[in-house]
């Protein structure tokens, strides 16, 4: 692969980028995606603005001072609060569980909430943390307790073990939808482009001077660049609008999901683009393309369909965890698992590495299928037939 090789490949990628970028289909998908993203960011923010006041239960001997603490915390965080005195911890916990209370302040000892978000109780700005801080500051410290270090804020404890917040889950769902749409849309476009070149026989003119692998590389790079620009546009709108409306989706731990989603978007595209190109090369007419292209996208559909079982459950099942490491399904499954808080970061990295390795394997197989199929006209080719040679 010398300089001339790359120069020619760049020419091919450039044509792909210009032709597809100027197409109406590209403009339409970009518009739909951007509107969807804008809606996903703005609508929750609008709803959040109309949220009901937080109901805070207080347990202890001095309800008046605790009410002052809670009201102060409400002012600091810009949240409306309603204070409800509770007779004892047991009844307060029961009220928390059944949802009639959002937060309970137990005088001088702790702040109780139903569930601590995955981002941790330390993520600043939230009402429970503000209450814990202010209550901690105003608490008279017994003389001997300094030995254990100055503990200013009260601990925030969740009744239910920490799970992923709804925000994170929704971000995960949103990420998986965008990933699925982008990868399968661009995959289809690549497959169509390949089949078009084969059907109208321009491949013969091009391959008279260019190697099949160059044509394949140029096509997937050009389209990849285009999809990357589109994805970057989506993320920019997400971040820009998100910070403008002060969306918790952008500020919270969900940002990490978007980053993971972007990484898996790039790797997932890389994994699938060559497979889609190979699928397109196996038909002689564009009208036959569904027969070879649909099977390529099935792992993504499975990962996407099953993502609901993870996003709406407290714990991912073993099968979905397995899908999270399998290169064909991991582009969607792993961001979903991460969003649901079911896997630690290191597993996300391991999965990404596996996907990168899988991409190389897939590229080799796809290049073989593509070079063998692209000039063979006639009936639709079967994969086994192509691989046999």
């Amino acid at each position, binding site marked *: 692969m010398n300089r*001339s090789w790359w*120069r*020619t490949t760049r*020419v*091919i990628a450039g*044509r792909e980028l210009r*032709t597809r970028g100027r197409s109406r289909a590209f403009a339409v998908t970009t518009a739909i995606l951007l509107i969807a993203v804008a809606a996903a960011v703005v609508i929750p923010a609008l709803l959040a603005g109309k949220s009901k006041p937080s109901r805070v239960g207080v347990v202890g001997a001095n309800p008046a001072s605790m009410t002052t603490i809670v009201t102060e915390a409400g002012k600091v965080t810009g949240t409306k609060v309603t204070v409800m005195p509770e007779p004892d911890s047991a009844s307060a916990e029961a009220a928390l569980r059944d949802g009639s209370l959002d937060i309970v302040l137990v005088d001088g000892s702790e702040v109780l909430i139903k569930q601590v978000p995955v981002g941790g109780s330390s993520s600043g700005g939230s009402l429970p943390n503000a209450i814990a801080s202010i209550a901690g500051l105003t608490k008279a410290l017994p003389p001997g307790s300094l030995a254990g270090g100055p503990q200013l804020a009260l601990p925030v404890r969740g009744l239910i073990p920490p799970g992923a917040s709804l925000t994170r889950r929704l971000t995960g769902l949103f990420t998986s939808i965008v990933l699925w749409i982008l990868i399968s849309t661009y995959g289809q476009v690549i497959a169509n482009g390949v089949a*078009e*070149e084969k059907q*109208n*026989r*321009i*491949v*013969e*003119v*091009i*391959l*008279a*001077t*260019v*190697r099949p692998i160059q044509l394949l590389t140029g096509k997937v790079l050009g389209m990849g660049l285009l999809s990357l620009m589109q994805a970057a546009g989506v993320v920019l709108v997400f971040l820009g609008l998100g910070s403008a409306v002060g969306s918790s989706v952008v500020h919270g731990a969900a940002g990490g999901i978007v980053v993971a989603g972007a990484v898996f978007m790039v790797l997932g595209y890389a994994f699938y683009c060559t497979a889609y190109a190979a699928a397109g090369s196996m038909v002689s007419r564009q009208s036959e393309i569904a027969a070879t292209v649909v099977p390529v996208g099935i792992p993504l559909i499975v990962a996407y369909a099953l993502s609901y079982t993870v996003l709406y459950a407290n714990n991912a099942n073993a099968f979905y965890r397995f899908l999270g490491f399998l290169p064909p399904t991991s582009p969607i499954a792993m961001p979903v698992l991460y969003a649901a808080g079911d896997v630690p970061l290191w597993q996300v990295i391991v999965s990404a590495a596996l996907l990168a390795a899988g991409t190389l394997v897939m590229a080799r197989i796809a290049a073989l299928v593509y070079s063998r199929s692209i*000039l063979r006209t006639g009936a639709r080719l079967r994969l086994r037939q192509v691989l046999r040679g």
Partner: protein
Amino acid sequence: MPSLEFIGLKRRFGTVVALDGLTFSVPPGQVFGFLGPNGAGKTTTMRAVFGVVALEGGEVRWDGEPVGEQQRRRFGYMPEERGLYPSMAVLDQVEYLGRLHDMPTQAARDAAHGWLRRLGLADRESSRLDALSHGNQQRVQLAAALVHEPDLLILDEPFAGLDPGGVDEMSAVLAERAADGVTVLFSSHQLDLVEHLCESVAIINHGRVVAEGKVTDLERGDHPRLTVRVAGDAAGGWAAALDPAIGKAEEVAAGVVTVALEPGADSQQVLDVARAAGAVELFSYANRRLSQVFRDVTGESV
């Protein structure tokens, strides 16, 4: 000047033998006709030059070297099944193919302009290809094969589907390229055209060469025939005096005697015999037409 050589090309498709040790060479700087019945292996041979078909044996040489990627950059190709991007603008398309042949962008654009103007498509440069008529699409295809000023031009059925004006234009371009030192190889079934345009041809059948050489030599054949008429001798009686070692009368029609010359015999000796009998009114080679040669060597009609 480099020449193109096909040496022992072999290729089967399933049970069909497409190329069966095909061997011939194309002299440089000529318009060379590549003939044969349908299915004789012409398209497979041309594809083999570009590596679009893999060979099971033999090789194609250019300038004495096996053809590789570097040489192919300097070749131009117009395949039998025309292929360009239907929705791409004509100028962009020709420029793109120039750039794929390693031309810098501006040079490719200039050359594309030049060829499209030369082929009468200057006002259609920004049209989509599929908005053009069949003949004009063919012109674009020719421009795409010529844009990088190739040293070797290979065209599979370039005249198919062209109107008489298009045929003249295509012929003129091919002749002009050859005059510039380009080696031009094309296949065609229009043998009158080939006769007119080509200095040499190769005729193949079942993947083997069955005749090759200069058109004039092929038309004359191994047993050249002379047509001779002597004034006042309607029965062609003068021919009785011919030495059988030189030739003999085959046929007499309205005083015109067709004399079959023996290989290597001197036609002037026939003329001497005829002049001895009277005034010679007609004396010329009775060439077979190329189409007759074709039928004779392939056993098939055109």
